[in-house]
């Protein structure tokens, strides 16, 4: 009887040693532990063993079963692992193959610049507003101190629609007039008005009959030319870098007095002279000035109480300078190969 168990044990060890895969392991399970398995049958024979040997026999059978089970579990786990690894290996792919492009759309290059300007001004409390592109002469010219026959009208060759009364706006200043009228001379005004404007120009690399102007207006109390300078120091440092310097030069506009040109030190050559600044070290960006008292009056603001500054610049020009574009038509033709590049941020972690 004992001999028998020893033999079985030897056979079992031998069997386990020779198992090659999960299938063979399961066959062993059947051989030893199924209903008619060898160990199960030994278990049944317990009743035939003499009483004094029963205990020892039982212990031996249990030992045998435990031995099998332990090995079985270990080997099963190992075989399964091996099989999974094989499967995974067979599933391996060539990660160097091209991706599936899920593309986010890009802004128009000009719009990218405009949005940047808008966010700078909004952070300083300016609202962004627009108005009609088909505009009345009254708002486009007259209420800006440019009566009919004023020489300043020559510089803005305008598309008239109906006689001399209706036109395609030649500047976005009428939006400022409309904003002032809406506020009825009672509330302060702080707006920028980016928008489409039109002038009778032949389109070429530097001229466009349609262009985007960004104008702004601040009307409040005790506003000075130094406030204008300070504001543009903030704006242009944001746009062109912290080392940019702002310079004011006298100029003339009918709707501002004093009028200035706002120059920045050349961001490219740092003021040493280069192509971009035509060796002057400075680039003129913006026309501006203190709002003419007559303009305030016409829009029902009392110049003895209110004062303000206004400014305007061409978005195209600034975008061309900033991004190194030399043909204004780039903005309006939209070659997607060019514009898609502009769908990215310019985060510089220099802090």
């Amino acid at each position, binding site marked *: 009887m004992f001999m028998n168990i020893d033999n079985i044990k030897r056979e079992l060890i031998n069997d386990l040693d020779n198992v090659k895969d999960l299938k063979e392991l399961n066959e062993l399970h059947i051989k030893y532990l199924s209903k008619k398995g060898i160990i199960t049958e030994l278990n049944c024979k317990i009743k035939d063993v003499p009483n004094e040997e029963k205990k020892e026999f039982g212990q031996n059978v249990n030992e045998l079963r435990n031995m099998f089970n332990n090995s079985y579990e270990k080997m099963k786990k190992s075989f399964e692992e091996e099989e999974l690894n094989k499967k995974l290996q067979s599933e391996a792919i060539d990660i160097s193959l091209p991706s599936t492009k899920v593309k986010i*759309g890009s802004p128009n290059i000009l719009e990218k610049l405009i949005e940047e300007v808008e966010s700078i001004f909004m952070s300083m409390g*300016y609202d962004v507003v627009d108005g*009609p592109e088909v505009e009345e002469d009254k708002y486009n010219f007259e209420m800006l101190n440019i009566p009919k026959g004023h020489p300043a009208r020559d510089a803005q060759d305008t598309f008239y629609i109906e006689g001399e009364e209706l036109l395609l706006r030649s500047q976005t200043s009428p939006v400022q007039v409309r904003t002032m009228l809406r506020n009825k001379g009672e509330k302060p005004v702080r707006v920028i008005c980016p928008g489409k404007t039109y002038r009778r120009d032949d389109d070429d690399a530097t001229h466009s009959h349609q262009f985007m102007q960004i104008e702004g207006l601040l009307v409040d109390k005790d506003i000075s030319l*130094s406030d204008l300078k300070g504001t543009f120091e903030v704006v242009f440092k944001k746009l062109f870098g912290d080392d940019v310097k702002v310079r004011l030069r*006298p100029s003339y506009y009918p709707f501002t007095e004093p009028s200035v040109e706002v120059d920045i030190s050349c961001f490219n050559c740092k003021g040493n002279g280069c192509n971009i600044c035509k060796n002057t070290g400075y680039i003129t960006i913006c026309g501006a000035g203190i709002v003419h008292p007559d303009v305030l009056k016409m829009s029902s603001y009392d110049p003895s109480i209110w004062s303000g500054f206004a400014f305007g610049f061409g978005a195209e020009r600034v975008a061309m300078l900033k991004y190194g574009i030399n043909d204004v038509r780039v903005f309006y033709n939209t070659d997607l190969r060019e514009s898609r590049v502009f769908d990215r941020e310019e985060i510089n972690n220099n802090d």
Partner: protein
Amino acid sequence: MINLEWVKDYIDIDDQDLEELAVKITEVGINIEKVITNKIDNLVVGKVVSCINHPDSDHLHLCQVDIGNDELKQIVCGAPNVREGLKVIVAMEGAVLPGDFVIKASKIRGVESNGMLCALYELGLEERTEEAYNRGIAELGDDAKVGSDPLVYLGLLNTLYELDIHKHRNNDCYYHIGFAYEISAILNRKVKLPDLSYKEVSDDINNHFKLEVKTSKCPYYLAKMVTNVEIGESPEFIKRRLLSVGMRPINNVVDISNYVMLEFGQPLHFFDKDKLKDKILVRDADDEEVITTLDNKERILKSSDIVITDGVNPICVAGVMGGLNTEVDKNTKNILIESAIFDPVSIRYTANRLNLRSEASIRYGKGLSYEYTKYALDRACHLLEKYANATILSGIVSHDKIDKTKKIVEFYPIDVDKMLGIRIDEEDMKYELDKLGFDYKICDGKFIVTIPSRRLDIEPNVNDIAEEIGRLYGYQNIVGTLPKVELKQGDYIGDVKYRKVISKRLRSLGLNEVKTYTLVSPTVSNMFDYETKEKIILPNPMSIDKSVVRTSLIPSLLNVYNYNKARKVDDINIYEISKTYDKNYNEESKIAFLMSGAYVNNSWNGSLKVDFYLIKGIVEELLDYLGFKNRYSFVKSKVSSLHPGISCDILLDRKRIGIMGRVHPKVCKDEVYVCEISLNSLMMKVKPLKYKEASKYPTISKDLAFIVPKDMMSSEVEGIIKKAGGRLLSDIKVFDVYEKLEDNKKSIAYSLTFMDSNRTLTEEEVMNVFNNIIERVITTLNIELRDK
């Protein structure tokens, strides 16, 4: 154009570096675009100390030339007139003559030559004629100082400033005396007016002329008469100066009128007195009145023009161009000099309409100072007496309705300080006003300033004074400050806000923003004209291509599509948001997009291609995003330029807000989908966001399929399913469409989801509803059930 040698007649600037002066002038306000000079470096006056024949030539000379500082240069010269003792112009090594001719040391027939003796034509100061050539090198007077600049000695050194004429207050600084005042304000030096004196004979102009002004557009008209003029050439300095600023010298009389205009900014007109009768009548022209102008062209006038007449016939279009009938010619003896001020606006209109924009009309059109009207008249008499031997009659005929009220500004220094944002000492303000030549007094700390009449550009207000003081004091002294205003966050307002929100969403949905032109051609404007709006047609377009204000953006997007397609871009998904206008000036902002090619691209592993259902998905996504879920629908429609079978209207609250579909193959043969939605229709209030808990109870799904006629729309079936399903039906999904059934039929399979948010449904009650749905669909639409 301002000639600085000319300016020197009125202000002392001999000590100034004219390049540096130009920078200073630009800094304080007058934009000098270019400094043009004929100065040549390394050009000096020399004296020929010895002159012998060249050993190896029959016409060359070998000269030793003293160029100052005890320095002698050996120069070979071929001119016939070179001789010992002659003062000459020496171009030394390094001099660059006109035509980029660089002077170098060289050997001429074996003899060293260290420069060149020059003729005037070689320096660009004279025309290169045979006569000039034969004359040889320039012979300077004995008073020429060896070593000095010969152009200075000859008075030929010219420096010109080219001004930016488009802007700025050039009515007072675009003539030489005005410009001298600007320099005087910068350098604090006095301006000296030119000689205005002349002798008069006792004969009075009033014996010969009567003046009548019958228009309000001529507030000031002065005339003097001169007799016995001798027409001839102008003196050299007048010719040279006119030429330098781009005016062709004609004869002494005509040149003088131009010369005075360039001095005082006041245009003059000279009439041949003998071609006139005894009267000058200034009046508004009659409509259709005809005059032949100096250029021998017939001009048809309008009643808005001002005309000078001899009482009956027009003799001059006032301020614009004289008439041929009273022109000064070579036989002219007696002249009537007109110096007047006309309504600038009227002159500008007339000059523009007749396309006769001249130096004179531009000046009249900018407005003139009455003081200079008289000065100019006197100056002309002075010059005519001096250079045309004219006899000046006494007396003057005049019409004087000009407003001579002095422009006076009163202000406290603090007013200027507040406007500029800097503190300027009262003493500094006084100093700047002195430099400007403005008269002022101070009463109890208040400045009372009188603006000189020459400064037409200055209005009597503090702003104008602050600008004058500020620009001279120097804007570089202004230190940036920030406005002391309320702290707040700015925002996008009105339609701009919608534009930005929608723009951002469309970009995140993979559409690329484009910007196109508002103005299109008539043909393009009629494409995609689904609203049949009347269009604004420009009366003065630049070209027919850009003559109509578009009402739809889609044609412009197709343009961008074609542009990119031609550049081999395949997947073109673009959008634009822009305003449109119809004939009645109604504004409508529109959102348009165009999609073609792959939406999700993988060239080797399968792409998701754009089709109708994709663009529909984008529209739904956008409308859902804006809060319009369940308020929109799509109905089949025929839209011009769209595929008749693949197009629809987009409805919001049952009103059409836009269209979408595939572009008609006749318009574009590629598979291109477009959509246009009115942004204005989306600008309305939507429900605020509110949390809604998802149901905790299980759902039950049931599938079924119907066989329907091919042209029946799934939405019809869905509509009935929804109605019949009632409250328990929570979702309908189409999960299969099979188009290839016989008898022109198709099958659509739906998966219905049932749910109650308060309890678990029983199979039995779901089956009740489900069977009811089937029956209602079959009976209402008269179609068969395929499967369930």
